[in-house]
């Protein structure tokens, strides 16, 4: 892997770590506040933010020397959304249930 540890990445790692713990705390607290339909959106939104931080900075996708890495990540997400989304087209349009 390319040496991007020239300027210390330690500050970045600890920063992301704090951010992740903070996000976890916010998710936990927000769940106990009545937000109606937005509870789910907030929870999933924060989860996605956390996952993105882990992927980009802990898994080094942000600084990836290979474009292919990013393509693999995007492809995996695309097909996952395909599975979830197209299956939902069935369940969301079954007017008789």
């Amino acid at each position, binding site marked *: 892997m390319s040496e991007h540890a020239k300027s210390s990445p330690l500050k970045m790692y600890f920063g992301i770590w704090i951010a992740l713990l903070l996000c976890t705390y916010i998710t936990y607290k927000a769940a106990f506040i009545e937000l109606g339909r937005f509870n789910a959106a907030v929870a999933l939104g924060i989860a996605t933010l956390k996952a993105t931080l882990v992927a980009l900075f802990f898994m080094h996708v942000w600084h990836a020397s290979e474009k*292919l890495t990013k393509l693999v990540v995007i*492809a*995996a997400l695309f*097909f996952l959304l*395909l*599975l979830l989304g*197209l*299956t939902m*087209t*069935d*369940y*969301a*349009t*079954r*007017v008789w249930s």
Partner: protein
Amino acid sequence: MQTAISQPVERENYLNTKYGVWSWLLTTDHKRIALLYLLSITFFFFIGGFFALLIRLELLTPAGDLVQADTYNKLFTMHGMVMIFFFLIPSIPAVLGNFLVPMMIGTKDLAFPRINLLSWYLYIIGGLMMLHCMMTGGVDTGWTFYAPFATNFTNTKIVEAGLAIFVAGFSSILTGLNFVVTIHRMRAPGMTWSRLPLFIWAHYATSIIQLLGTPVIAVTIVMVAAERALHLGIFDPKLGGDPLLFQHLFWFYSHPAVYIMILPAMGVQSEIIACFSRKRIFGYHFVAFSSIAIAVFGFLVWAHHMFVAGMSVYAALVFSLLSYAVAVPSAIKVFNWTATLYKGSIHYDAPMLYAFGFLGLFTIGGLTGLFLAALGIDVHVTDTYFVVAHFHYIMVGGAVMGYLGGMHFWWPKISGRLYPEGWARLAALIVFIGFNLTFFPQFVLGYMGMPRRYYDYSHMPEFQVLNVLSTAGATVLGVGYLLPMIYFLWSMRYGKPASDNPWNAAGLEWKTASPPPTFNFDEEPVVTWEAYNYDELDAPHKEEVPVAR
């Protein structure tokens, strides 16, 4: 390796470099692993074929008089499971792909040779589990093992069969992983994407499907096993579960799986047609990208297997439309192969006979798929022999003929021997005739209303004539499949030794010895020419007709 024909001291190659069982069972040479697969999948092909024989014998008469109903259910289930998971899905990628991918891109081995060996062992373990399952009672749910019958009501060995398929699926995933990384990272200098043989593009697309689709059926099997063994009922209607969810998850893999089975054969088709027309494939980039398009679009259409199962009719409309779209890249390939033939210098060697067979039979199979994609037609012919005929035209008329064509084409490279051309052409003809006699009547039967998976059709005895024809065809087809087995084996001892490039074909694999040395090339190739440079290959001897002899 001994030769019956005396010749100068034999060069060292991957076959004779080391002897002994362990040099094969612990090999990391992709070519030896390919042969290990060849033996294994041939074994399972005959097991699956045996079940097919029993099915066709039962259907000779309208009454269910050969086997009992439960037994018949097991026969068609095991035929499907063995043929799909243990023959068709590995066949071309694990045998021809393993052998040729590194050679075609100019490298010494796949990216992960030990994982390649692991793939084979996983396949064997899965195969042994499936054999054990079959010998101790088998499964009777159909290869599709739908919930809730498979999860709640049958007491056959679902968990064992499911785990066998899970393990074999892992083998498939690792093969796909190996191919993707190899093709991205290990191409020889000068081997750009646009210079890759279409066989490589096809296997790359196949690998994408294997990687992204197989895990979904794997987790579905886990859920079924959890339901049966641990009472964690995810598809259980008693808990509010939806059996259709099983079908969604099952077909999310199993539809792209059919593209795993056909894309490699399409790759073989491109190589054979180019060589035996002495022409570059027409529309190279269209054919290359159509492989990727098939891989992606193939994931968008799965619910066309569920049109009458109780899904939303609006979703069915969407899937029907998408199913028409997925036919387009396949059609593009058929047009381009045909255009390649135009003004080509056609040679009718055995591989080309299989390619011609593929061209016609795949087209028929594919077109009948479009009939099935139309909701109105599907309502009438779903779960009839029309569907059975449709998929056998593609799987057998397409994929198996592609596999046989490829085995003949690359046999000189693999074994260093020439097979007997006369017998091979005869066998190809027998296969073609036997195939059509077996499966064309089934289109008619299905259209007339004969349901699939029925062992007794005595309520409609007028189906018997066509069934008898179909069984007769199956016998002929069986003979056609036995012949190559016999003469390939014969050729390993008595066949004429092959030169490096008996077909004068394009491709890096033909630039090294037959059989190749363990590390494929004496020197790393540097590619400076385009794929399918047949005009250059034929230029020095335009008057001659390049043949294998």
